[in-house]
Every structure is written in C-alpha cells, then in structure tokens.
C-alpha cells in the first residue's frame, strides 16, 4: 500500500494537534458540554412526548371502540327486550341519532416515525376529528385548547427547534470564535508558518469542531428516535440527511465569517447577527412576502360565510327534508313531518357541503404557502429544517391537507351510513355494528 501523500499526512498531524488542543480548551469543552446537555435533554423530552402522544391517541381509539362495543351490547339487549323501540318510531330515530352523533371512532393522523422531532404542529392544528351526523364545524365543534396560551408560545420546544437554534450557536461560538481568537493572538500565523499548507490549521480547527457539534446532534437524534416506540429507521436516516445539510450550511457560514480580518468580538457579534437574521429576520420577511402575495383567507370572513350557510340551511330545512326523502325512496317516509332529530339531518348535511370548502381553503392556502417557503430554503435553513421535521412527524401543511381530505371522506361515509337509518327511524341492529365506517388505529 502506498504511503499517503505528505500533504495528507501533514493535515492529519494538524488535525491530531488541533484535537488535543480542543480537548484542553475550557471554552470549547464548555460549549460542547452545554450543547450536549441541551440536545440530549431535549431529545429525552421529545422522545417521551412522542411516546405520550401515541399512547393518548391509542387510548382515544380504544375508548371509542369500547363505547361502540358497549352500544352494540345495549342494542342487542334492547332488541330482545319487550320495550325495544319499534322501527319507525321517534324513539328509534333518537336512539340511532344519539349513537351516530357521539360514538364514531376519532380520526387521528398516523404519526410516522419522526414524531419525536416535534408534536407542536399536531397540537396547533388539532390532531383529532370525530365525524358526526351533526354539523361538525358549527354546533358540534369540540376542538379547544385549554392550556395557558403563554405556555403554548414558550412551551417545551420541540427537539428539532432546539437543534435548529443551538447547533449554529455552538458552531459560531466554538469554531468561529476560536479561529478569530487565534488570529488575534497570532496563533494562526504561527500555525500557518509551521504547517505545510496555510489552510491546514483553520480547516482542522473549524472541521473538528463542526464534526464534534454534528456528532452530538446525531447522538441526541438517535436518543430521541430510540425513545419513540413508533420511530423507524427510514425516518431517522432522512432526518440525519436534513441535519447534515443544516450543519453544512452553518459550517460554511462559520468558515466564511472566519475569513475577514476583524476582531474576535466583531466576529462574535457578526455571527450572532447572522444567526438572528437567518432564524428570525429572514423567515419574518418571507412570511411578510407570503402575506402580501398569497394571504391566508380571513377567519372572520369564514365565520360570516359559515353563519350564512347555517341560516340558509335552516330556512330551507323543510324543503331539504322533502328532497332527501324524494332522493331516497327506499327509506320509509313518516306520515307526519318528523321533528328533531330527523328534521335537522338533511339540513346539517347541506350545511356541511357548504361549510367544508370554506375550511379546506385554509388548509389549501397553508399548503401553497408552505411549498412557496420551501423554495427559499437556502436563505432560511432553520425554517427549512423545521419544515422537514414537521414532514417527518406527519404534520406539515401538505400532510395536514391530505389528513383533512381523509377525514372528510370518513365523515361522508359515516353520514351516508347513518342518515338513512335515522331518517327511516331504524333502530341499530347487531349486524350494523359490524359494518360501521371506521378509522385505523393509530401507530
């Protein structure tokens, strides 16, 4: 085997010397230790939160299945008892309605393997939807956040957020500051004079610190994924690719900041300024641009339109009911106009067809803006990393839109199953429970 070229050997010696120096530098050790503490702590919290999230989703699913099983047992008992509600009676319609309004298995997103990276997006957008025969978006809205809003704003930051914030700081404070300090102390000149190539030492200094920071981030990521029972290798590897790209971006930025002949203090402040600009200012500018070019629909305007749909459906309740029975000749129509709940069902169905597009507009706009923002990732790598993390956690804008479409389809199937039975005042039979529209159990 041929010997490595002299320049490679010299570079390796420089790296070994710099590694020994790194281990002796208190500032370097402190920065790396603080980073390790923060990232590992955040990884543990992220992994445990993912575990809790999955457990809660599983419990919600199990509770709903249990409620359905109980209702099935009650239906069986009622059908055998003497006071069973007769088909066609208002009591039968009411009993079927009460099951249909509240006993659906909740629709929950299948959180993929990257959930330990963050659950905030799931929490903000609501991770659960329960189909009903009522109006899901008006009277039957049950999506509330009870927590203190300040904790929602500060909150335990997601693991991906902590990485996005601290990794660049560690690089700038460690590698960037070291190189400029060495220049100010005359150490760089000495190293350059004693090295075969002048670039050996700064590359070794920045490269080794970059590797150390990346290694800590990778280790913490592995811990976060290991603690999440639903994680998978594919998501972990994809996250590592994103992490590598992010670290490369900031490594390059650190190296470029080391070039100008400025004082260590000026270099530190410049690095901090870059960090603030890239993580705060640039995303704010991009959001302002998105607001100007493709603003989100107005929530207040949506409320007004929603109420118009409600009022219009209520005014036309009688004609909607007549039309429903005309369109479903197989369903026996009562001799007298039925009261609640049958009088409400076609009205709610009509309302949902009008209201749903209003709400989808928000998901569609969010997905569009998300795609636009992704194109600017070289200028906003922090935002890009968070978007990648959201994607791996199953909660980016596109995935949310897909989830909402699936929920709408589930809602339609639930309504299609129950409306004929409620409008025909059919009590639920045992066999009905075996063909209920369902939603797969969350992982």
């Amino acid at each position, binding site marked *: 085997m041929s010997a490595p070229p002299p320049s490679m050997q010299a570079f390796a010696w420089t790296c070994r010397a710099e590694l020994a120096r790194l281990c002796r530098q208190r500032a370097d050790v402190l920065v790396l230790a603080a980073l390790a503490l*923060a990232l590992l702590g955040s990884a543990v919290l992220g992994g445990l939160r993912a575990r809790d999230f999955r457990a809660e989703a599983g419990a919600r699913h199990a509770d709903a299945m249990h409620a359905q099983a109980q209702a099935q047992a009650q239906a069986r008992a009622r059908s055998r008892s003497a006071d069973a509600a007769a088909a066609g009676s208002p009591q039968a319609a009411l009993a079927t309605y009460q099951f249909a309004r509240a006993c659906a298995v909740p629709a929950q997103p299948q959180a993929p393997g990257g959930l330990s990276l963050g659950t905030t*997006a799931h929490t903000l957008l609501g991770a659960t939807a329960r189909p009903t025969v009522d109006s899901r978006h008006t009277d039957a809205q049950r*999506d509330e956040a009870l927590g203190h809003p300040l*904790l929602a704003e500060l*909150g335990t930051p997601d693991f991906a957020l902590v990485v996005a914030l601290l990794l660049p700081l560690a690089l700038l404070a460690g590698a960037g*500051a070291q190189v400029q300090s060495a220049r100010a102390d005359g150490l760089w000149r000495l190293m350059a004079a004693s090295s075969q190539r002048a670039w050996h030492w700064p590359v070794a200094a920045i490269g080794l610190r970059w590797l150390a920071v990346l290694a800590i981030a990778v280790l913490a990521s592995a811990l976060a994924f290991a603690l999440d029972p639903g994680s998978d290798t594919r998501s972990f590897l994809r996250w590592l690719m994103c992490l590598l790209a992010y670290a490369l971006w900031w490594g390059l930025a650190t190296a470029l900041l080391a070039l100008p002949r400025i004082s260590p203090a000026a270099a530190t*402040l410049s690095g901090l300024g870059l960090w603030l600009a890239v993580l705060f200012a640039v995303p704010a500018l991009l959001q302002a641009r998105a607001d100007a070019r493709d603003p989100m629909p107005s929530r207040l305007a949506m409320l007004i339109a929603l*109420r118009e749909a409600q009022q219009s459906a209520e005014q036309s309740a009688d004609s909607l009911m007549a039309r429903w029975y005309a369109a479903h000749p197989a369903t026996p129509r009562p001799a007298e106009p039925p009261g609640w709940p049958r009088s409400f069902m076609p009205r709610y169905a009509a309302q949902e067809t009008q209201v749903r597009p209003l709400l989808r507009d*928000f998901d569609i706009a969010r997905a569009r803006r998300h795609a636009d923002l992704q194109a600017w990732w070289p200028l906003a790598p922090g935002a890009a990393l968070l978007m990648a993390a959201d994607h791996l956690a199953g909660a980016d804008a596109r995935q949310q839109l897909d989830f909402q479409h699936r929920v709408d389809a589930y809602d339609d199937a639930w309504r299609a199953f129950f409306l004929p039975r409620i409008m025909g005042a059919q009590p639920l039979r045992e066999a009905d429970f075996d063909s209920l529209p369902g939603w797969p159990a969350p992982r």
Partner: protein
Amino acid sequence: MNAFAHELRLLARDGRVAVLALAMLALLAATLATAFAARERRDAERALAEAQVRAQWDTQGDKHPHRGAHFGLYALRPEPALAAFDPGLLPYTGQALWLEPHRRNLSRHAPAADEPPATRFGRLTPAFALAALLPLLVIACAFQAVSGEREQGTLRATLALGLPPRRWLAAKFLAVMGAVLAVVLAGVAGALLPGLAQGTGGSAAVTLAPGRVAGLALGALLYLGGFAALALAVSARARQSRAALALLLGLWLASVFVVPRLAAAAAQALVPVPTAQAFRDAIARDHEQGLGGDGTLAERGARFDRALLARHGVSRLEDLPLGASAARRLARDAYADRVHALHFDRLWALHRRQEQLLRLAALASPTMAMGALSMAMAGTDLAHQHHFEDAAEHYRREVNTAIDRWDMAHTQGLRSFEERYAGDALWRSVPRWRYAAPGASFAWREAGVPLALLAAWAMAGVLLLMRAARRLRP
C-alpha cells in the same frame, strides 16, 4: 458632564456600535410601523365582521326562539391599541368566542394555527426587538467599555488622572443608556410620525393609552438599565473583552431563550391542565349528577316541575299560563351556568398557578419579567383575555335569559320546537354586544410583580456596578 460627553463621543465613533445602532433603529421603526398598520387593518376587519354577525342575528326571520338562540352570536375581542407593539397571547387565544345556549365556550380560530413553522423561533415584533435585541445593542456598547481600556493600557492613565472610578463608570453607564434610548426614541418617532397628523397608527396608541405607554417606558428603562449596569460590571471585572462578551452573551441567551422555555416546561409538568375531553366530560357529569347533594338532572327537573305546577295551581305542564319549556330552560341553564362557572374558575386557577411559576422563573430571567410587563401594558396577557371572556359570558347569559323570558311570557304550556313564533323583532330587541376593555389601572395591577422584579434586576445591576467600581484595578 464632560466625562459623559466624552464617553458618548467614543461610542459614536465606534463603527460596530454605529452599525448595530442603525440596524436596530431601522428594525424598530419598520416593525413598529408595519405592526400598527396591520393592527388597524385587523381592527377594521373585526368591526366589519361584528356588524355582519349582528346583522345576521337580527335578520334570522321566523323561528322557534330557542332555535334562534342556538344560531348564536360571536363576541369578537377588539385588539388593544398597543397589541401592535406586543401581540402577547393574541395569536394563541383565538379571535372569536361563540355565544350559544347551555354551553360556555373558549375562543376559537387562533391565528397561530395559520402561521408557518418558523414563527416557533419567535415572532419578530416590536416587543421582541425591545426585550431580545436591544439588550444585544447594550452589550455591544458596554462589553469592552472597561476591559478594552484595560487591554489598551488607557485604564491606568484614566485612573491616574484622579477621576473617581464610580463617576467614570456612571458616565459610561449614562452614555450607553443615552445611546440606546436615542435609538429607541428615533425608532419610535420614525414609526409614529406618519400617523401623528391623522391620529392613526401608533400615535393613536400613545394618545389613547398614555398610562400604559408610561408603564412600558418605565419597564423598558429598568430592563435596559439593568443590562447596561451588568454589562459594565462584567467588563470592569473581566481581564479580556472577549471573555466579557462571551459571559454576557451567555447570560443573554439564558435570559431570552433558555430560562423562559425551561420555566414553561416546568409549569406544564408541575401544574397540568385537563384535556378538552376530560374538561367537558367533567362539566357534563356535574350537570347530570348535580353538585353537592342537589340531585341528578332528572331529580332537579322533577322538583322544578312540581314547584312550578304548585305555584300556578295546575296539575299539567300543558295548563300552565306561561311557556313551560322556556321556564324549564331558564332553570336548567341557570344550573348549567353554575357548573360551567365552577369548572372554568378551576381552570383559570390552574392558569394562575402556572403563571406564578413563570413569575418565579423571572427571578432568573429579566426578559420574562419584561415580557410579562409588556403584555400587561399592551392588554394582551391572560388577565385581559379572561376579562374579555368574563364579559362575553355575562353577555351570553343575558342574551339567552332574555330570549327564554320572552318565550315564557309569550307562550303557554308546552310548544313544539317546530313552531316558528319568534321573528326579527325579538332578535333585534337583544342588546348589542359592547365590550369595554379595562383601564390602565388594571394593567398596572397585573404588571405589579413584573415591575418589582425589573426594579430588583436594575438595582442588582447597579449594585454590581458599584461594587466593580470599588474594586477597579488597571
């Protein structure tokens, strides 16, 4: 005075400081101007929506009165003038509160749901610029004020001149504060001037809420003053400027980013709130089973019916000379309101306990104290939100009671829900929603603890600086 002028000149000549100061000025002016303009647009949208909601209510047409009540109204919270400076919790508390019979709701449609992921780093608002970025300007002005002179050797000469260290450091402190305040005032003036003539934008906030603006200004002075004193004290003690800078930036990072988030995590873990499902289930359970010996819903209903029949000397609900369903609803909803009040009070007590933990953490993070004060003065903290929700709840009860009383007075016995005997006259007779936000004294009360913490922080900084002055060595 000469020393102060000299120090100010030194700062002005420092290129780094000049660049940072200009950047900060531009940022402040831009964020203030755009924030106030955006807030005016949102306020106009809210006012229009409020009028449309009311118009929809007024023109419901002929309905059963209870069905009309279920159409509901929305209480839209007006955004305080200073919310543009610090939106506080508004992105998370929802824009609209639905007022319906039988059930008290929380605000919905939080703007945070529509924001991109990058806002999780932090919102670039004027309050963020004040609390997170201006301290960086202070640090940049002060970190090598003393250590730099020590490194250059001019400290020995300065001390040899006989200038008392305390007076010298005081001059530096005043120069740093002067520079920072000049940037702040220039930024604020730049943002307010365009609207001053029309009384719009930020100038409206100053004229409409002078008490709150004064509170903000006092808090900012204490906050930045504390940072300036601390930065100078560290510079006076540090042997090297870069060590002083590293320490100060570490403290800044801890105060702005680390401590607040750790404190929030601790508050969530130590004082958990119930899930929405558990909360609503508990309300439903207490309503169904009754509170403390009141009996179940069915028992209470039967007792009420018996009493009502006895009072009117009839034996059947159909024979009552008033609307029986409406009378029953009034009784049921009064009880439901008690149950809701109990559970909401418990929930808000949990929120207050969480806030107390956050206030405790503000001992280690003046930025948290500044944030709490800023939100209180801007009217965007939880206390102001609860004030609004309490007012909305009071209005909700008023509306539904008015409708049920009308129904009770205008009908007899039992009536079907399919009957449509209420019309636009009833809907229009319901009083309009008018919300009066609390005054400045409410904000000052809420800001009392954060203000005290900031005063303690400033005092601690000054004491450290005085101690550093006593021990100053070349």
